């Protein structure tokens, strides 16, 4: 017959437990407060807001793209990813109004692209484009492209 191990338990004082319970309650209150009242910039105590909105059945869904005119005359899409443009689509989308006011902010994309493609053809012009899908009663009805801003690349 084996003698069962007597589990060793580390002592925890009353104060030690009390502050932990209090800290848990503060954490829960902060998290609820964020989701009930605050906005994203309150992270990590902001709302869990990803996909927390309700597009209607006749919505227009926009994907933001950047197209570029190259020095050799080609028109190409610059994929908005960190690996290709140094910045991702979400960051550009979040700044669309600023870019529309000041298209030179597209320099972010041209600098990122050029740094990653130093030997490729030079970008001469950039276009910020909304690739739109129109829904009608919840079904895809049509698509179009709308140019939101354009900027001639300056050194």
């Amino acid at each position: 017959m084996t003698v069962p191990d007597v589990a060793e338990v580390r002592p925890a004082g009353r104060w030690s437990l009390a502050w932990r319970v209090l800290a848990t309650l503060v954490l829960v209150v902060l998290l609820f407060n964020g989701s009930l009242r605050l906005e994203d910039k309150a992270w990590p105590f902001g709302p869990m807001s990803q996909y927390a909105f309700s597009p209607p059945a006749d919505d227009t869904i926009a994907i933001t793209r950047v197209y570029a005119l190259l020095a050799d005359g080609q028109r190409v899409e610059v994929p908005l990813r960190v690996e290709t443009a140094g910045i991702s689509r979400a960051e550009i989308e979040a700044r669309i109004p600023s870019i529309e006011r000041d298209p030179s902010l597209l320099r972010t994309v041209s600098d990122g692209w050029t740094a990653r493609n130093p030997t490729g053809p030079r970008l001469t012009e950039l276009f910020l484009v909304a690739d739109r899908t129109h829904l009608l009663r919840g079904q895809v009805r049509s698509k179009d492209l709308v140019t939101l801003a354009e900027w001639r690349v300056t050194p």
Partner: protein
Amino acid sequence: MSWFAPVRPEARIAVLRSVLYVFVLLDMHVIVRDPIPLSHHTELYRPLDLAVLLHLPPPSLPLTWTLYAVLVVGCLVAAAGRAPRLAGWVVAAAFTWWVAIGFSYGKVDHDHLALVVALWLLPTVGAVPGGWSATRSSAQAGWVLKCVQIAVVATYFLSAVAKIRSGHWTLTSWPESYILMWAIVRRPHGLGQLLVPHPGVLHVMQWGSILAELSSVAVLWLRGRALLAAALFWMGFHVFTVALLYIHFAPTVVCWLAFAPLERLRPWWRARHPPLEPPVPVPPRPGSALVSR
């Protein structure tokens, strides 16, 4: 009191630390991997409240590279179980700052909540003598695990709250909306493409999602097989969202380990890989002799 800080094996903390500090290394290279390139673009930086409150300087290349180096060294030290408080809090602060920079250019994800909570609280347990093989239990360990569990569940439950809030506090507006259609059109990579012609199926999935999120709080009171079933359900949920939209929530998924009996890992491994016993010398029998050829 004991619900908030149940006595739990400290070996579970030791394993969770190793996994999460290694995960942070993975995260900063695969998930929140853009603070260094983003720090080129000060014109697009909009600080979070946290950065304003703490007067954090705007990101720059020296700052983000320093954070990167601190995180790599800190994670390696902490994952090895060395200086658990110092290394743990250095990693917690540096990673919170790192992620905050990544979220300061317009897009804030909510998949990092449980991981950030875990990183700040794991150091409070201090040293765990014996590491993965520790036999000691404590309320200190149980409290950390409980808080990480609460943060995991809050990620789901509060996302349902945010959805209900966005629909002017009605339960039906989000699940009856065209949000999954919107998401699939914008992320046309996965299986979601097949569902675009079937908005009714998408609505059923939205209802399932919000009801699961609202009922996720019950996970905090489940035990044994019921807890295992709930964990498998949520793992399945995340696999499904990956297949549908390429959205993974890996930082939340890894924190589900706070529910798992990780302290059984080392004994389980030992039982399958017993240490080699040293050879025992056999005394020579009288009258016999070993003959070498």
